[in-house]
């Protein structure tokens, strides 16, 4: 009995120090389970965004010109800047994972911080874009106005404000839910940062950094599609 309680004690300690949970056979199984879990979760995320992409596709097809005109009213340079910001953050994430793998704790902490700074920069730029739209009365709702905006490539034709409003609804929904994912990502990275500062990650155990990174890259990939779909349609004069 004494033996088994010692084992129990060790077991509990292991559980406390997040290494091997009781129901896994070994660390490899635990890591594989966590990583598959995140990938499967990302698959559900694809479908979650998929519903909005579906709505976008149909209305883009129906209201081709109106979408072009509405898209032209948002600042593509800001969108491109944000794309670059996110791509840089993906690089720092992958460096953070590498630092955890190779036991470079200072680099890990540094890269996590830089990633979060990029994330905040992205949200800041996004917020500024929202502010612009608000100023221009392009936020769907009672004060929405989009009158006499020419349709690109069709001189003399103006966008239908109601159809433009659908574009802006989708714009705010898609970028808004994407931004929500960024905020969740920042939360995850804050937790990773705390854990990294406490020295919890070792080359044997860095799964949280790895799967947190997977989530971040996924949010980046969503933006990689949002950027051309929302910002770059009918840009040419």
């Amino acid at each position, binding site marked *: 009995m004494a033996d088994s309680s010692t084992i129990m004690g060790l077991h509990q300690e292991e559980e406390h120090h997040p290494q091997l949970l009781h*129901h896994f056979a070994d660390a490899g199984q635990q890591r594989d389970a966590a990583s*598959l879990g995140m990938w499967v979760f990302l698959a559900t*995320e694809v*479908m979650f965004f998929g*519903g909005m992409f*579906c*709505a976008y596709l149909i209305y883009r097809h129906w209201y081709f010109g109106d979408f072009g005109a509405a898209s032209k009213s948002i600042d593509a340079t800001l969108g491109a800047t944000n794309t670059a910001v996110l791509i840089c953050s993906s690089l720092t994430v992958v460096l953070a994972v590498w630092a955890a793998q190779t036991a470079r704790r200072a680099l890990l902490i540094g890269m996590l911080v830089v990633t979060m700074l990029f994330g905040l920069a992205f949200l800041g730029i996004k917020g500024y874009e929202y502010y612009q739209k608000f100023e221009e009365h392009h936020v*769907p709702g009672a004060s929405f106005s989009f009158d006499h905006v020419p349709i690109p490539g069709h001189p003399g034709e103006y966008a239908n404000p109601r159809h433009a409003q*659908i574009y802006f609804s989708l714009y705010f929904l898609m970028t808004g839910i994407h931004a929500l994912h960024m905020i969740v990502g920042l939360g995850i990275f804050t937790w990773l940062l705390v854990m990294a500062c406490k020295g919890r990650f070792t080359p044997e155990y860095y799964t949280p950094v790895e799967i947190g990174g997977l989530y971040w890259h996924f949010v980046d990939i969503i933006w990689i599609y949002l950027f051309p779909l929302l910002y770059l349609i009918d840009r040419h004069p």
Partner: protein
Amino acid sequence: MSMEIAIPQTVERENYLNKEYGVWSWLLTTDHKRIALLYLVSITFFFFIGGFFALLIRLELLTPAGDLVQADTYNKLFTMHGMVMVFFFLIPSIPAVLGNFLVPMMVGAKDLAFPRINLLSWYLYIIGGAIMLHCMLTGGVDTGWTFYTPFSTNFTNTKIVEAGIAIFIAGFSSILTGLNFVVTIHRMRAPGMTWSRLPLFIWAHYATSIIQLLGTPVIAITIVLVACERALHLGIFDPKLGGDPLLFQHLFWFYSHPAVYIMILPSMGVITEIIACFSRKRIFGYHFVAFSSIAIAVFGFLVWAHHMFVAGISIYSALVFSFLSYAVALPSAIKVFNWTATLYKGSIHYDAPMLYAFGFLGLFTMGGLTGLFLAALGLDVHVHDTYFVIAHFHYIMVGGAVMGYLGGMHFWWPKISGKLYPEGWARLAALIVFIGFNLTFFPQFVLGYMGMPRRYYDYSHMPEFQVLNVLSTAGATVLGVGYLLPMIYFLWSMRYGKPASDNPWNAAGLEWKTASPPPTFNFDEEPVVTWEAYNYDELDAPPQKQEVTVG
């Protein structure tokens, strides 16, 4: 701990039920078996709420005049009946109760891959359920469980957004359950437990999880869109503002048609286990049954627009969807044929679980075949939105899914509780459920074919419908008794039932090779699987063989 040196023989073995006591040992548990029981209690609660609404609906339809409730109340009754039964009973029923309890044991694992996420999913379910209850008590929803736009977004003044939030949260609970199953089945199998040695219950749950994972997010985003549309009048689903209500229907049914397979696939898994055990035979065509589950999961995603044939979709698209809907009947038929072939020359025992399995076979076949009527473009125009549809999907969801759920509850009750249920009462209940079900829903096929539309509370212009409606209401009463009986004797058996042996049915499968009820980590030592699934010929070969030792 140090006191337990000499354990008297009379003391019960430590198991998951008696390991700890107290409310917190349940509310903070990460043991999949305890979470399964938490789910069992919660879904039973919602089942009786949904059943109560059904009872009121049937009472209203007892007479042609709309005399029991007001039209608005009736709308709310069938809406809340549908929402509660679909999202808070049927979808979690078998996966979250029996699946939660059995998936880790059947694959030979100590727990699901993510026990804390499993507990989280129960809490999400409870939060969603609480919001749904609040929504019901403060007015409810009157749109029908499908909350079609633009009625739900522009016109009704009932609590769409609140109900939407409840379903959204319950949906996440469902996603997390599916995620846990997929990872557990891939990563946690015991040594020797290859894919073709897995019980078909596991294959069915794997297929179910695929749908939960890939379908549920789409209804989640649809609910977000409906809520935004309703709050801000964006125009996405509003024809007046250039939107398309049919887009809502596409997105809604992309989840909600496959959701039917979330309900029926686990039930098929249960039935497979029961039929093999009570025919004392290996299931006929194991691989066909296994892959037909996956095929149903995939094909289930290709047929959704058959709900929209008369809603104004493209006729060419409707042709494709009609064809694909016929295609999904193939894997279902493969299953029915294989079950029947398993029965052939089997040594059949008519215990209560098997009675439910027989009930399932007949009712599911009828539900499936009438589904083909509805998938036919021409006939669907005639019977769309009539009681024919109601009867059809109740044959699948109640005759199929609930029969499977009850059969499974009986089959595994000795394992779950460690007690035997009273067999005589159970057979009687199975019979009552079967008779009550047919009496309730068969007349509805006839009513629907005669043209009685669904969702009407007053049919006084067609008094000739009354006879069939009275039959249906009478049947619902019988059915209600049939559902109350198992609850009563299950509760009774927990205290007074005879103790169950580890394997009272002499069934194959890892879950029967551990104690009843099982210890917290399921197995005293890690099982090593050296036998094929459903090895009933080996189990039955020597007349009185000693207990097979694991490993």
